[in-house]
């Protein structure tokens, strides 16, 4: 094959197989459009109605939703984890820990009298919630996929 691969291409080729790469390219493209659409909607809302969230919450929403979309779709398609990764346990445990830690921080702030909406916009308290979202969504998707694909293991009866 002609040497037209960039270093980045070579890196991805080593870590993901051809089906995973195609899935990741497709999902990345969808994620890019989702990001653009969310930024556009956010911008239009601010132009016509004013702010809809605290500054840091707004940033986290615009980062969190596309990240969650990519993670969930990629895990579901079996294209998230590298082929070189023999065990996903450490990744899943650490993602669960980070997700739950941020979710707990959000819940504690609400228990301590924080609110989700302040002065008609999403409050800063939601920052932690949207930080937890991609991690927990990834872990839940992985768990559901794992349970569902048990039937698809090699010893499966012919469907």
């Amino acid at each position: 094959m002609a040497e037209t691969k960039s270093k980045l291409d070579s890196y991805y080729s080593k870590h993901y197989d051809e089906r995973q790469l195609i899935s990741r390219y497709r999902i990345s493209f969808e994620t890019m459009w989702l990001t653009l659409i969310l930024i556009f909607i956010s911008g239009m809302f601010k132009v016509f109605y004013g702010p809809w969230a605290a500054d840091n919450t707004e940033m986290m929403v615009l980062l969190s939703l596309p990240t969650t979309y990519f993670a969930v779709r990629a895990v579901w398609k079996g294209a998230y984890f590298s082929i070189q990764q023999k065990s996903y346990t450490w990744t899943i445990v650490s993602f669960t820990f980070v997700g739950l830690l941020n979710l707990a921080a959000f819940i504690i702030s609400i228990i301590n009298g924080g609110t989700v909406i302040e002065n008609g916009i999403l409050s800063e308290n939601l920052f932690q919630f949207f930080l937890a979202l991609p991690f927990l969504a990834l872990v839940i998707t992985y768990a559901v996929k794992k349970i569902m694909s048990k039937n698809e293991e090699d010893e499966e009866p012919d469907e």
Partner: protein
Amino acid sequence: MTKNLKIKAARAAKDMTQKDLAEAVGVTRQTMNAIEMGDYNPTLNLCISICKVLGKTLDELFWEE
């Protein structure tokens, strides 16, 4: 796409699991499963790798009448 039962049969004849074959050709088990289920159309390079591991020709595994 139709299921590729020829790969499954050749794999079974060699007493290999999907995971074994996937590792031998450098892909994930999900990819191997997708090929057998007819959900993914592999590249020629991957077809050749599968044929080499299973000791079959491209015709024997991938030719559809």
